[in-house]
Structures are given as structure tokens and as C-alpha cells.
């Protein structure tokens, strides 16, 4: 599966498309509960934490320029332990994809299609995602690049918000919330910004030399962080502090207050466009799930199809649970360990492995 290569700009879009998704819509009020008027600092801080994680990835991946995470684990930990870690990754990717699609379906049902049964929406979302995810990485990347044009449309729509009364003074005084609340806010933001871990699997498929890879990763992170900060900023200046905490999806709500003679309910237009980044996230996770267990093309296709069925089933089950909170917390912390601690340990271990290999070669 090494054949199809993607370019560095394509890697950039693969990362940002995976990261920007459903998490953003509710993010501003989620952080505001913790960090109040300094929420925007929380987002920047989360971006910095992700930068550190990305640096650790880069240190690890630099040593295995042509192998994806699935192969690296087996090489460092040996076939059995490596396989076990890969299976764990697979399970987490499926769970994250299911969780994301559950939130996604609930959002659509709440805002747009209240009477449509959940399974229909699940089927449409997962079906579309599998259709794209079974394809080669360069095909996925091309679609992501094309769909990124929509971010420009979304930014344009968001600018309309300045027609509403905005109060820059809502941000003042800066730093009043204190360090702890801001850090707690960062934690929430971190989970809304998940998706940068795709680099672990897509790094090996980037064509050309490996110079400048860290720059591409950092640029993607900077873009996502600024994009999120911008929307948090919009909500902070657009809503009174009390109103912001009353609302679940402030990013949509802020557009609900806009109407023009020709266009009305801009929130629904925004949401319709937002469906594409949300689906892209699920495409990425299905692709990761496939890549985590196999490196061969035919097996990959079958595995992605199977993963699609699993995501559909799990998502449907999840949507019947009344209290998702405890599950989501467990999932988030588990996943956090998988994408930060495990790669960091692997990197430390890789130092030893490489030394051994060198000794063997000599």
C-alpha cells in the first residue's frame, strides 16, 4: 500500500479536515463554563499542547520515514505486543468514529431533521464515509482539498455575524479567570481538536523528502488553532456571558440571529455546509482504522467496509444510551493516552531499537 503518495500540501488538508469537525460547534460554550472570558486563551494553550505532541510524533516518525504507525509498533514491540497495540488502536478509532457520528446524528436531528429516524442518518453518513474511505489515500486527499474551499465559505458566513451587535469589551479584563480555569478549558478544547493523530499513519505516504514535514504539521496545527480561536472569539463578543452558557451550539446560534431579505436562517445553511467537514472526520477515522491493522490493499478495503458496519452498529447503540457523559469521558481519556503516551513511549523505545540495529549491522 506504499504506492499511492500524497503531497505535503495534501497532508496539510488531511490533517485540518480531520481536526475541524463537530467539536467546534459547541466548543465556545463548553469552554466558557470553565474559562469564562479567557476562553480564547484556552484554545491557544491547547494548540500549544498539540504542538508539543506533534513534535513528539515527528521525533518518532523521523526514524521510520517509510513506515506507518501500524508497522512501527510491530517493529519496536515485536509481532505480538505490536499487534496487540494495533488492535487497541483499531478499537479506539472505531469508538471515536462511532462517538463522532452519534453526536453528528443527534445534532442533525436536533437542528434540521427532528422526525427522521436515526438509523437513516447513520446509514447515510457511514455509507458515504465508507465509500470514500475504501479508496486510496491520494483520492481521499484530493477530496479533502476540494472540500476545504468550504472553509472559505464558512469564514465568509461567519463575518456576517458582525452585523449583530458585538461587544469587544466582553473579552476584558484579560486573564481575570486565572490559570487553572484556563487550563481546564484547554483540556476541553484539546478533545474538540482531536484528529492531528492522522499524521502517525499518513506521514509515511507523503512523497518527496522528509525535510519540512514538521513545518507542514505545525502549519496545520496553527491553522486549526487560529480557526477555533476565531470562532470562540466571535461567540465571546457576540453573546452576553450568561446567554453563552445557556446555549449548546453557540456557533450555530450566533447565525440564527441573522436574516436578510433574500436569505434567512443562515444557521441552517452553515450546518448544511458543515456536514462535509463532519463527514470528513469520519472518513479519516475509518481510513485510520483500516491502516492500523493492515498494510495490504485488498485486506484494507475489506477492513474498512467491516469497520463501517461496526461504526454503524456502535453508533446506533450509543445513541440509545441516555447518559453518554460517562462513556465519553472514559473514551476521551483512554484515547488521550493512546495518542500521546503510546507514541512517546515508542519514541523512547525506538532509540534503543535503532541502536541495536546499528550494532547488528556493524
Amino acid at each position, binding site marked *: 500500500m506504499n504506492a499511492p503518495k500524497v503531497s505535503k500540501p495534501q497532508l496539510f488538508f488531511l490533517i485540518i479536515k480531520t481536526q475541524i469537525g463537530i467539536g467546534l460547534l459547541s466548543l465556545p460554550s463548553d469552554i466558557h463554563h470553565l474559562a469564562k472570558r479567557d476562553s480564547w486563551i484556552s484554545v491557544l494553550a491547547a494548540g500549544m499542547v498539540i504542538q508539543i505532541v506533534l513534535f513528539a510524533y515527528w521525533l518518532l516518525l523521523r526514524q521510520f520515514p517509510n513506515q506507518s504507525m501500524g508497522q512501527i509498533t510491530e517493529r519496536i514491540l515485536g509481532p505480538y505486543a505490536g499487534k496487540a497495540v494495533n488492535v487497541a488502536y483499531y478499537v479506539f478509532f472505531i469508538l471515536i468514529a462511532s462517538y463522532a457520528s452519534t453526536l453528528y446524528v443527534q445534532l442533525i436531528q436536533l437542528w434540521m*431533521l427532528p*422526525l*427522521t429516524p436515526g438509523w437513516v442518518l447513520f446509514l447515510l453518513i457511514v455509507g458515504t464515509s465508507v465509500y470514500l474511505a475504501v479508496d486510496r489515500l491520494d483520492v481521499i486527499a484530493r477530496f479533502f482539498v476540494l472540500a476545504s474551499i468550504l472553509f472559505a465559505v464558512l469564514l465568509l458566513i461567519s463575518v456576517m455575524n458582525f452585523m449583530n451587535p458585538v461587544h469587544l469589551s466582553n473579552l*476584558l479584563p484579560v486573564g481575570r479567570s486565572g490559570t487553572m480555569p484556563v487550563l481546564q478549558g484547554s483540556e476541553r478544547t484539546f478533545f474538540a481538536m482531536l484528529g492531528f493523530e492522522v499524521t502517525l499513519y499518513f506521514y509515511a505516504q507523503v512523497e518527496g523528502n522528509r525535510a519540512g514535514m514538521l513545518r507542514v504539521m505545525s502549519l496545520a496545527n496553527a491553522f486549526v488553532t487560529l480557526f477555533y480561536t476565531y470562532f470562540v472569539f466571535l461567540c465571546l463578543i457576540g453573546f452576553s456571558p*450568561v446567554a453563552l452558557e445557556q446555549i449548546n451550539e453557540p456557533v450555530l446560534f450566533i447565525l440564527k440571529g441573522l436574516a436578510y431579505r433574500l436569505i434567512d436562517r443562515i444557521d441552517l445553511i452553515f450546518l448544511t455546509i458543515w456536514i462535509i467537514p463532519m463527514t470528513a472526520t469520519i472518513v479519516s477515522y475509518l481510513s485510520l482504522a483500516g491502516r492500523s491493522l493492515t498494510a495490504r490493499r485488498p485486506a484494507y478495503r475489506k477492513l474498512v467496509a467491516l469497520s463501517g458496519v461496526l461504526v454503524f452498529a456502535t453508533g446506533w447503540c450509543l445513541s440509545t444510551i441516555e447518559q453518554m457523559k460517562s462513556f465519553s469521558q472514559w473514551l476521551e481519556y483512554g484515547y488521550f493516552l493512546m495518542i500521546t503516551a503510546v507514541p512517546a513511549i515508542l519514541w523512547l523505545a525506538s532509540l534503543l531499537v535503532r541502536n541495536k540495529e546499528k550494532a547488528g549491522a556493524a
Partner: protein
Amino acid sequence: MMKRFAGLALTIMGLSAVLTGCWDTQYVTNKKLINGFSLDAAEGQGMLGSVRTVVLENKGGGQFDVKDEFMKAAGDSTSTIGMKIDSMLPGTIEASKTHVIIIGEKLAKQGIAAPLEPIFRSPKGYLKAKVLVSEGTAADVLASKQIDHNPIAFGIKQIVEGAALSTSVPKQTVYSIWNQISDPGDDALLPLIRIVDRKTLIVDGIALFDGDKYSGISLFREDAKILMLLSGRIGRLVNLGIPVQEQTITFAGSRLKRSMKVTVNPKTNTIECVIKADLYGSLNSYPSHLNASVDRARLEKAIDAWFDAHGKKVAGAMLRANCDAFGIGRRLRAHHSGLWRKLDWNEAYRGVIIKPEFHVHLKNTGVIR
């Protein structure tokens, strides 16, 4: 095998893609479109609501007759009233295009947050609906006869829009109000609608709110316009009739520069708010001065004096109403946060000194000297 499976999957997906809309399809013909409703306080608990719905009658040849229906119901909350009215009318009621919401004086004094909440919360609620307070019963306003053969709710909407353009009342929607009534450092101003001569509707006043409650204090005509200017809002124009030397001149302001400065005396913690408003405009009428050229400096001075006197009156009314629509609290929170956290703003606001300073700039005297 794989191919057949793919074909089947595609068929299912194609079908559900086409069918998805089915569950959520709603035909306009089965809907009763509400274009305006009113809410009043009932005796004791509960509310009285009334709605105006649009009925489209096909006259044939692609022409429609727009008719208006009026319906009343009582209930404990906005939603229960809505459900009651829904069962009174054929078709499901649809409030996603409600243009005006009128709240009776008495209910407004009890608080408008609870009655408006269902609209704010529902994903279908139309947040651009204009909200007004009525003098007396709101249902009477909504029950008035058609304006220019238009449904009454459209008529009211147009009156409010016109009044906002002439700087008589603020443009207030459910969305903008919600932010103001929920913010402790901000208060709302709502347009006031009343019936004169038992049949004519007029929007020329502003109701001052304290939190989500109508304070009972309102400002009309010139005072309302001055309040609008002080809060930094100007429509397309503002026409003011100003008495100068026993006659009334008309001044048309078209551009406003306004700045607000909030200072705190460090010793006494007295809060002072200076609002500077520079109004640029022209003289539209000065009946006795048709043949003499106007002494601008003197006239400006006279106009300034009139403005300052009315400005003081408006500021006094704001304090009496405990209505912080200038956002002085928000300024304090941002720039004097230490003091803000110590203050009980609801109490402290009355002690604020508001100093309006007007400067009128006569750019020209119209087409006459």
C-alpha cells in the same frame, strides 16, 4: 459477490438518500402560518395569548387573497397557549415566520424572559421577530383592523421598521433582547406601541427595562429620540422639533459621533459616565427667518441648550427606571473589574452620575438661506 453487495449497498443508500426528506417533509398547505402573536398577563397566574395567522385564498389565475385570522387562548406558558391555539385552528401552527411579538404592559412588568424562552430555545423559533411592548392590553393591539389591506402583523412590522429608521425606537429582536436581558451589565430598551383615538396604532415611545422587567417608565417622541442618540443609535435620519424663541424649528440630524467615558473616583468610588454626542445635520424649517440669514453660532447654542435639558431628563428617567441600556455596567466590568465584583450593580446603578453632552453641527440650512 463483492459487486452484488456493492450494488445492494448503493441501492439502499440511494433510496434512503431520496427518502430522507420524507420524514421531515412539511407542506405549507397543512400549516397555519402565524405572523404575529401577543401575550398578556391574566388575572392571577397564567397568560392570555392571541395570534394572527395568515390564510391564503386562491382566487384562481395565480392570484391569492391574503386574509388574516385572529384567535385567543389562555394558558400557563407560551407553549401551552400555542398548543391550545393549535387545536383550535385547522392545520398545524407554524411560528417559524412570526414577525412581531407584542407583550402587554402588565406581563412585561412581570418579566419577559419566561414568555420568550420557548421561542429562543426551539430550533425553529424565529429570532428575528420584532418584540414590542404595548400600552394596555397587547391583544387589543393585535385585534385592530387591517392596515392598508395588509395583515395587521405586517403592518405593525412596517410601522416599527419605519420608526427605527427615523430614530424613534430601537430595532429589537428576540435575539438582541436575549443578550441584553441576560447580561447583568446591560439592559434593554423596547419599542412601545399604543392605540390612539381608539383605532390608530402608533409606535413613538421606548419602554425602559430593568433586567427582564419593564420598569413602567417610558419616554416618548423627542425624549425617545434623544435616548436613541445617547445610546449611539441613529436611523437614516433624525428629525427633531426644537422650540427656539417661541417657535419650533426642525433640525434633521444625519450623522452621529458618540463616545462614552466611564470614570471612577478612586476616593469616593463615585461612578461618572460622560456621553458625548456630536450630531451633524441641517436646518429643515425656521419659519420666521425666511429673509434673514441664519446666525448659526447662536442657533447651535440654543439647540445645544435644548438638547442638554432633554438629555438630563432622559438620564434621570434611566436612573429612576434602573435601566442600564448604555452598558455602563459592561464598561465597569471590563475596565474596573475590581470595583465591579464588589458592587451590587442593581443597587449601585442609581448612584451613577450620567452627564450627556450634546454638540450640534449645523452643516447647512437646506435649500433656503
